[in-house]
């Protein structure tokens, strides 16, 4: 009984640390991408801590609530935030162990993010503003299209490792070493497209616009202000870190800490940061060199990703 309690406490502590750590890092990543994008456009860009300043400012402001809205409007951002935070405990970051891997694997992770999306889209419909409805409709559309491609990409990696549990999966990959299969390239490309779609980046969505013809995510949260908006922004940033970490876990788990020795942990932190940074650069390059796609061209992009995922499975197992 005692070891069980010890394990439970250990898992809870790890979950708290990991969730806290990712919450702390997320605004930085968002600003880094913004800054790199600005450099692409020959601008200075915001200071590196701008993400934190923004959050601090929003958290201090008054809350504005539409007089049309019900409690669903209030609950939406909280559930969205809770889902993003809870999802961080399912993904291995520095160690080949996810703090709450006893709770579930890939499917639970995808389900949790879907829960957050459901909550936010529902809440967006609550103010009666046409923007909210437009955003919710578009967001759910793109999510629906991205879901099968996301699942196929994840299945391709999971079936190769023989586990749908992310902790188990990464442990298998670490054991196999850098001995990778060519099919991984296809699966990675497929998943990368989906990550772009899910995090609302160009060419699917433009995070920097407030033009009703083009915005998706921003339209959905247009009515939010103050602390509620801070929750949404923060959770979106966490989601982005989470997706990039997922790519890192599945395709390049090099450098992950196999023991709890300080050196190993330090190496793991640096390695994780470097890998996420490289992916962030890729995201920035894609975002800076592409134009946003028309909404009705997005299905083509996503179906490419679906095809890549299916090919990866076929090459690997036939």
């Amino acid at each position, binding site marked *: 009984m005692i070891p069980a309690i010890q394990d439970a406490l250990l898992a*809870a502590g790890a979950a708290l640390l990991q969730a806290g750590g990712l919450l702390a890092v997320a605004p930085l990543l968002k600003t880094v991408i913004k800054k790199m994008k600005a450099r692409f456009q020959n601008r200075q860009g915001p200071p590196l801590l701008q993400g934190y300043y923004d959050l601090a400012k929003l958290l201090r402001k*008054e*809350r504005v*609530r539409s*007089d*049309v*809205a*019900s409690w*669903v409007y209030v609950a939406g951002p*909280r*559930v969205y*935030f*809770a889902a*993003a*935070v*809870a999802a961080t*405990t399912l993904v291995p970051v520095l160690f080949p162990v996810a703090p*709450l891997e*006893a*709770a*579930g*694997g890939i*499917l639970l992770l995808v*389900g*949790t993010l*879907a*829960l957050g999306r*459901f909550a936010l889209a*529902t809440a*967006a*419909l*609550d*103010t*009666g*503003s*046409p923007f*909210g*409805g*437009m955003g919710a*409709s578009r967001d*759910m*559309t793109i999510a*629906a299209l991205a879901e*099968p491609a*996301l*699942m*196929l990409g994840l*299945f391709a990696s*999971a*079936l190769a490792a*023989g586990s*749908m*549990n992310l902790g188990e999966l990464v442990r298998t990959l670490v054991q196999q070493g850098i001995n990778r299969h060519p099919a991984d390239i296809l699966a990675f490309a497929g998943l990368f497209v989906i990550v772009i779609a899910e995090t609302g980046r160009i060419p699917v969505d433009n995070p920097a616009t407030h033009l009703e013809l083009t915005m998706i995510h921003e339209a959905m949260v247009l009515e939010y202000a103050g602390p*509620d908006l801070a*929750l949404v922004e923060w959770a979106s940033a966490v989601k982005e870190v989470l997706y990039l970490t997922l790519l890192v876990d599945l395709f390049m788990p090099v450098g992950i800490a196999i023991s709890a020795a300080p050196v190993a942990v330090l190496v793991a932190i640096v390695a994780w940061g470097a890998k996420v940074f490289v992916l962030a650069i890729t995201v920035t390059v894609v975002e800076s060199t592409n134009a946003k796609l028309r909404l009705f061209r997005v*299905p083509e992009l996503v179906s490419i990703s679906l095809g890549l995922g*299916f090919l990866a*499975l076929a090459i690997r*197992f*036939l």
Partner: protein
Amino acid sequence: MNGLVAVGVPLALVIRLTSIVATLMLVRHARACRWMAIGGSIVASVMTAVVAMHVIGSASAIDGTLFRHAASETELGYSVTPLSAWFLMVLALIAVPVALYSAGYFAHALARPRTAAVGAAFNAMVGGLEVVFVADSVIGFLCGWEVMTLATAALVATEHESRASRRAAYLFLVMSHVGTGCLIAGFMILASSAGSLSFPAILSGHLASGPMRDGVFALFFIGFGVKAGLIPLHIWLPAAHPAAPSSVSAFMSAVLITAGIYGLFKVCAFGLGTPDVNWALVFMAVGTLSALLGVLYALTQTDIKRLLAYSTIENSGIMSLGLGAAMLALAHGHSTLATVAVTASLMHMLNHAIFKGLLFLGAGGVVMATGTRHIEQFGGLMRRMPWTGLFFLVGALAISGLPLLNGFPSEWLTFQALLLGFTSTPGLVRLNFPLAAALLALTSALAAACFVRVFGISFLALPRHPAASAAQESPGLMLGPLGFLATLCVVLGVFPGVVLRGLEGVTASLPGLRPAGAMAWGRLGMSSTLTSFDHIAPALFGFALLGGFIVATALTTRRGLAVRQAPTWGCGGELTSRSEYTATAFSKPLLMIFGAVYRPTRQVDAVAEVSPYFVEEVRYRAEIEPTFERYLYGPLGRGVVRMARGMKVLQAGSLHTYLAYVLVLAVILLMWLGGTT
């Protein structure tokens, strides 16, 4: 208790029969006959539940006799096997809340003179379904099947002054009887080689072989597929389910379709010997198609009950997909994998019954309060009907397969079956599994979009119609059952292991399956036979979500934070319900993206009298093409009518001609007999 278990099934049927007779005798006293019908239904359902729980718990069947006529040596027996017990349990679990809800609903929403007929028909439908689940021979099965069908048709035609209801009932009867015809043919083929009508003899699995076996499979697949609402046999369902009174619709969508699923299990998957690989592929293809098209059609509906009916087709498809995966596993001899898939399918059946019952009952309350089924005329109901709104939201979350609610574990288990199937099936056939899994992912994401739309448009923001702004919350008698079902959604979502434990005995009783006890571990979670492959423990994860929610609440409700109520920005104008996003607009992007499936047509007419520049009225009509009705059933129906016309030549109406037919036939028969001897 044991005595009750031994006589529970006949007793429940006798109570139902008595209650039907009493209801019809009390036809002049609306209140008395309402309570007679509902009381009888509840007592009988509870009795059924007791028997079912006993059989599930002990995993051994209970047999007995329903009716015996000594002189003609006729005997109708019953047998509650663990599989039937599972279906009976689901039936009772939904029938009781539906009956209670009806007590409130009939009083408010049903014309008084109809109470007796609807109450009696409801009891007959449930009783017929019980007989279907417990019958141990073809005769009893078909009797129950027919009683159930006819009672359902009567309920569909409750509002018989509307043409749509009459048409729905007619379509239902035609499709059902095509199905029943297939079943009778299939049973006759099997019975003639078995020399018996009892199920154990008929379904022993080695009576037919080769093309004959495939033919029998096809007959049963069509026969049961009609009842299960599988595409392309579904066309009656979206018309019939919405036409009945809402509480009855709930029972039909939640439980009645499982009559088809039961048949598919009992006969197609486990009654005809080891399934053929091709059968399994048919199941998986039809299941995936039904799931995907069902949800796509649901997405564009604006009639709330019709939408829910289409979503029933979707879920029926998911159950068949699970069963198809099980059959493919059985065909390759993987008993453990088959167990996972069967468990997924049966679990989804239970979960679907719960959340679909909840959603239909919730929709019934909304329809009663607003007097319309059109979701574009709802809006803002969350304020007027807070409890109905809350319970409907729980149902919407559950049906979208989101964690911590009961839709998630069964969809999770279906995914497990598909992925494990991929790893343990040889050859190219295995590629079907990830394909089906990807389409299942698409289906469940589309379902989420669909239910964001229904809930958001119906319950949130401003009322879109005076009827919606005058809506009243349903009475407590109707809210109670909603609360019960919503609670079940949460409990079974957080502790799915409970359901797995219950299903162990059921799967153990089916031929060829080998239940793995490790699937349900502790009270916390469930795994797919191998904990290392995947497992979930929603209760554990609930803590993480709760933690996140508490942090979020603390961040936004700190002391000293001001809250201001303000009107929503109306883009410069005044915000009215007319500027809100509509349900049609919400699903428009998906309508355009899946245009190849929907083939939408749109007609905009500007009506102008004086000059084309002064438009007085704009008429807008949009519809999606009813593909199956137009291209499959249209030609089929016309062919049947043409054949009937052709045969009219024979039936000229002249007695002399008929006598000539008799003479010619007699001569031919004599010649034939002469030739053989």
